């Protein structure tokens, strides 16, 4: 079975600080990897995704993530955070077996608070 581990449950940063949120997954096959963001009171929005190819993927709002296959990791980064980045961030994975869409397995989320 797949599992996703997000290392930091709560992160507090000041504006302009750099951000890195850790995500590790456990799965024996080929995977698709996602980062979703949930702003307060809103639904999940896709930040970025990795299916194949260049392991460094860029998403919306200046976020990027790097897939390191040997470490089973997909960490999210942003060089300079803003107050508006305050949100819950979820790493998710599903199988890329080509046999049909799988439901996503989510990490427990990281609550990011940006202090002005």
């Amino acid at each position, binding site marked *: 079975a797949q599992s*996703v581990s997000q290392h930091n449950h709560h992160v507090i940063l000041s504006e302009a600080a750099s951000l890195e949120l850790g995500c590790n997954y456990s799965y024996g096959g080929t995977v*698709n990897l*996602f980062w*979703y963001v949930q702003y307060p009171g*809103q*639904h*999940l*929005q*896709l930040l970025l*995704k990795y*299916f194949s190819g260049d392991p460094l993927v860029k998403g919306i709002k200046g976020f990027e993530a790097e897939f390191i296959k040997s470490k089973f990791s997909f960490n999210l980064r942003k060089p300079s955070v803003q107050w508006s980045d305050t949100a819950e961030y*979820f790493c*998710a994975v*599903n199988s*890329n077996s080509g046999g*049909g*869409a799988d*439901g*996503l*397995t*989510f*990490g*427990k*989320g990281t609550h990011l608070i940006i202090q002005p």
Partner: protein
Amino acid sequence: DAGITQSPRYKITETGRQVTLMCHQTWSHSYMFWYRQDLGHGLRLIYYSAAADITDKGEVPDGYVVSRSKTENFPLTLESATRSQTSVYFCASSDYGTATGETQYFGPGTRLLVL
């Protein structure tokens, strides 16, 4: 472009009552999913559907029933609600087999409180 909608957005019910949460998408996506979100657990998959009349269990299906008679609708029914089913429920859809097929798009959620 309405996308994916859920109704009701908020629901309070009592233990033992039947509750149906609605999900509707306008993209004609083939796949639809139901998740529940609980503190400390993230989101967990309840059921999913690959097409009309094709459904399958996810990680936490007990106490829930789904149906998919039309591609655009995927209702989730709690046959006899329990307090442990108090949660936020998210519906999602994806169009597997297309360029963006592996991406799931989420609805706004339904907050359910079971008293």
